[in-house]
């Protein structure tokens, strides 16, 4: 509830009642002082003017004027005192009334405050409740979002891992097959190489064995033949063999028949 003092009890701006009355009292004093000063100054000026106008006259005039001035001054003084006292009284009256107004308004103010406080408390409680609810809701929402996100992330990672595993399996399979192939080829190559070497060795061995056999056989045959050969036949044999060899090799000038014994 607002009083009819316009600017003071509003929702925006609050003064205490005492302060207001004091201000009014001070204003009254100031007004009174101003009036006093005014009267002194104005009267003074009038006096000065009169003094100037009646300067040329005689001393009586001046004395009368002085007397008038004094009377005016006294009257001004008295008026100012009256005004002052009047103002003071009024101020006291105002102060008294404001004191009672202050009590009243304080009481109303307190009641209003209490009501406002209660309202504020209620609205605060409502707000708090609302905030709590929205926070709970947000938390719940957040939790659900987190769970969903976590689930989605887990699923994505699982998918990623599985695809990675598949890729790895494919790569390993490919590499293994490739390595197996390479190894097979290598083994085949080595086997062929070794087979060739064994064949060569076998051939070499057989050749050596054959040579030994031939040597043995030729030794045997030589011994057998030599038993039947005398020197003449032997010499004839040598000459015949030499001629045959020369003919085969083609290193002769011409082959003449050799006279034999």
């Amino acid at each position, binding site marked *: 509830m607002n009083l009819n003092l316009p600017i003071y009890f509003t929702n925006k701006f609050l003064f205490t009642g005492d302060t207001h009355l004091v201000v009014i009292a001070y204003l009254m004093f100031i007004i009174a002082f101003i009036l006093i000063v005014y009267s002194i100054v104005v009267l003074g000026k009038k006096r000065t003017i009169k003094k100037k106008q009646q300067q040329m006259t005689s001393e009586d005039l001046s004395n009368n004027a002085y007397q008038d001035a004094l009377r005016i001054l006294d009257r001004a003084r008295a008026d100012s005192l009256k005004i002052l006292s009047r103002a003071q009284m009024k101020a006291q009256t105002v102060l008294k009334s404001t004191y009672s107004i202050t009590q009243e308004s304080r009481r109303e103010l307190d009641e209003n405050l209490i009501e406002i406080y209660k309202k504020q408390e209620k609205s605060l409680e409502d707000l708090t409740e609302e905030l709590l609810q929205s926070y709970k809701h947000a938390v719940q929402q957040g939790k659900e979002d987190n769970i969903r996100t976590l689930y989605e992330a887990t699923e994505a990672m699982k998918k990623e891992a599985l695809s990675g595993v598949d890729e790895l399996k494919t790569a390993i399979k490919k590499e293994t097959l490739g390595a197996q192939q390479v190894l097979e080829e290598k083994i085949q190559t080595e086997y062929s190489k070794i087979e060739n070497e064994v064949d060569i060795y076998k051939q070499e061995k057989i050749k050596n064995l*054959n*040579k030994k*056999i*031939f*040597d043995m*056989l*030729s*030794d045997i*045959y*030589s*011994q057998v*033949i*030599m038993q039947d*050969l005398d*020197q*003449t036949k*032997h*010499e004839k*044999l*040598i*000459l015949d*063999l*030499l*001629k045959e*060899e*020369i003919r085969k*090799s083609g*290193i*002769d*000038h*011409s*082959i*003449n028949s*050799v*006279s*034999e*014994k």
Partner: protein
Amino acid sequence: MNEKLKPEFSRKTKDNILSILKTKENANQFTDFVKYLSGKTFSTEGFDIDKVVAKKYGGNIPFWLGGIKKDLVGNNDLECIRNFLLDIENIVDGSPLVRVEISFSPSEDFINSLYEVIGTLEVSGIDKNRFLIEFEINTNLGGGAKIHVGGKYIDVSLKKILVSYLETNNVIKRYL
């Protein structure tokens, strides 16, 4: 060439001395004789080829002596004789050798025949009838011979012939 010797004989002797000697063994004997003969040309008793030969060889005169004697008989120019002998000696010492490895001591006929056959070869360093044969007796050779002539090697040993025959006819596969 020595003009005071009989020129046709001395030239012929020099051309044919190697074909007369044929073997290194004969050439060594010849060289000994030539040195001996050269020594005798310095003798104060005079030079008589027949006496020298008889003294050296008695009745066993080498066959190759005939050719030289023809050139030296009736010749009293000892200087000429010495030069001739020196020429022949140089020819013999510088002659190319053909090495023949056999398992027996060859007969003269064999040597003659072999010399003729080798003379037919077209091998560098070997001129027809201008070489000597050096025989090397190797009893382990068995039958046949091995001949080293002018950097070439001719193997006509019995073993080689037999081995070649056995290999050619693939005896092992066929019979063993």
